[in-house]
């Protein structure tokens, strides 16, 4: 089995799917000859031609608007937004149109469109190449929202996304695009959308994260073990739909939970998870659910590693929670 990084796994997923289904077209800025600024679409234009690998003008609203039309027609478009920080010119098309098309047409139409977009900080990108805007989309009914944290899931979830008859916003944690490596089957396998993964079992405290933050979370879990704290680590992977069972099941066991994500705190996804835990496992809680998140500021440049949840900050919350 080849060992791929995230970029290679995603490239492989695209190629695999496009070979099998000629209704798949991909479109975005610089995805053609250049192969995308991160090379996720490398060599695809050479193989599939300019009708199926489309370099668009600089207009995210045009990319998503046109992709919606393609999906309505019966194609399976995969749109790339170069950085998730630049998704907002398409926000109206995504939240008012894409997310609501099935509903408002009474189910007559459907819009199976995948929006791939790199997100997250830690690459010295400053305010506009580092954002984690997933909460905006999680708050929008009609969208599915996923974020894999490793090459295996990246390929398997991208292929699963193509099975969905609903729009999927597919966030790619760009900080670990190259650093996350792993074995990736050459076959056309699936990783189910809507299922979390228990990465590490433990009985003392549940640690929940997703995306690039899984790296810090895992390290924190390992460090905590050195102090005798057994952390159960969950990679959500799929944010909408959410695997509530796996999460609640773990908390029923541990009674303690720390949530880690890098977006700004207020009204972020960690808040929603805390709310759900309150609703579904209140009586099991032996400490308040805690969150380690980005701060409520724009994303900085020089101090980005102070902004991002660190192993240290996660550990601190793990200790606080276990000693509550």
């Amino acid at each position, binding site marked *: 089995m080849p060992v791929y990084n995230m970029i290679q796994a995603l490239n492989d997923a695209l190629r695999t799917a496009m070979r099998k289904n000629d209704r798949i*077209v991909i479109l975005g800025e610089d995805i053609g000859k250049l192969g995308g600024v991160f090379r996720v679409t490398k060599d695809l234009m050479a193989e599939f031609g300019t*009708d*199926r690998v*489309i370099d*668009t*003008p600089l*207009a995210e*609203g*045009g990319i*998503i*608007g*046109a*992709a*919606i*039309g*393609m*999906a*309505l*027609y*019966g*194609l399976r*478009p995969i749109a790339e937004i170069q950085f998730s920080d630049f998704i907002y*010119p398409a926000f*109206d*098309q995504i939240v*008012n*149109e894409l997310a*609501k*098309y*099935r*509903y*408002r*047409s*009474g*189910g*007559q*139409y*459907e819009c199976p469109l995948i929006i791939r977009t790199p997100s997250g900080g830690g690459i010295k990108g400053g305010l506009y190449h580092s954002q984690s805007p997933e909460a905006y989309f999680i708050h929008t*009914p*009609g969208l*599915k929202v996923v974020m894999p944290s490793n090459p295996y899931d990246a390929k398997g979830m991208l292929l699963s996304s193509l099975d*969905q*008859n*609903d729009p999927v916003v597919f966030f790619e944690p760009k900080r670990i695009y190259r650093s996350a490596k792993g074995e990736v089957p050459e076959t056309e396998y699936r990783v189910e959308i*809507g299922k979390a993964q228990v990465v590490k079992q433990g009985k003392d405290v549940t640690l929940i994260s997703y995306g690039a933050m899984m790296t810090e979370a895992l390290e924190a879990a390992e460090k905590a073990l050195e102090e005798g704290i057994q952390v159960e680590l969950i990679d959500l992977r799929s944010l*909408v*739909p*959410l695997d*509530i069972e796996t999460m609640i099941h773990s908390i029923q066991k541990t009674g303690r939970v720390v949530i880690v994500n890098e977006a700004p705190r207020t009204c972020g996804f960690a808040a929603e998870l805390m709310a759900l835990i309150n609703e579904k496992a209140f009586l099991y809680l032996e400490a308040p659910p805690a969150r380690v998140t980005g701060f409520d500021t724009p994303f900085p440049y020089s101090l980005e590693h102070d902004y991002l949840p660190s192993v240290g900050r996660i550990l601190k919350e793990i200790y606080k929670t276990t000693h509550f």
Partner: protein
Amino acid sequence: MSAILKSEIESNGSSVQVLKEDGSLLNKKAEPDFSKEDLKKLYYLMVLTRMTDERFLRMQRQGRIGFYLTSTGEEAAHIGSAFAMEEKDWLFLQYREPGAALLRGFSLFRFACQILGNVGDLTKGRQMPCHYAYKEGHILSISSPIGTQIPQAVGFAWAAKIRNDNLASLVYFGDGATSSGDFHVGMNFAGVFKVPVVFFCKNNQLAISLPFEKQTAVSSVALKAQAYGIDGIRVDGNDLLAVIQVTKQAVQKARSGGGPTLIEALTYRIGAHSTSDDPRIYGDESKLEEWKKKDCILRFQKYLESKGIWSLGFEKEVQERAGVEVSKAIEEAEKLSAPSLDTLFEDVYSDLPQQLREQKNELLS
């Protein structure tokens, strides 16, 4: 297609006409050779559309429906252009084109059900009146946000081109919509990728209260095509025959790989923006009077009269038939009740995810 019109599908500010305002032909050679059946059908549809508007407007005033939008004065623009498309083509509507939907077989009964938002509504009572969707008739889903359908129509037609399916899409929008970012990106994409789409701007010279001359500093929407390397043409929107001809040429050009065309149909909004609007506050009375005189149905009627098709008897018959059709549809629709509670949770996704199942139980329990 007559050469007279053909040469006009170029970027210029002048306006194409076939019928003079008195209904006589501007140029004999430009007359299309439609069958009497077609001419009658078109006339009926225009009358039916206007009557439908009147009836729903009245119902709104009576409190029987919540909201309505008329297309009075603009029937030729949208019915003519829809007529010019083939059945296999797809239409993206803004909201003020009921005649186009009726032409595509959207029954008045379904229309009434949509307006009432009841169980007979194909869209399950989810949208405001006049925001329907009718896939069977190749009518996409209408939404309120202005301009959003424009890049969607581009993507749709583009997909057909990619699949080598020989069909086109036509997208309606208003003069107000030309100011939206979506107009710009849609036009630009269509130009770059030579997409088989027809942009059909119904310039009724008003966007709620804003007159066209404050919407943009250019004198004609058609001129905007030049920014995208696209052909633009302005047509007299109250001239049914000219609208049909110009649209036919545009769609033929699209199908034969000639790329998109921006058609501007110049017309005027005779009624209020919607039943929530009060144009007395901002309206231009003299302009309104001027345009009322240019009524598109009257002009077409005079043409039909000159062809020996229209007569007082014919008019009476048309009016009666239309009247019955509307009444029956409304009567049938009003018998139906509201959608059931569980429809609230359907169609958000292709399936019913757990959290919606729980929320549904919460509401129903």
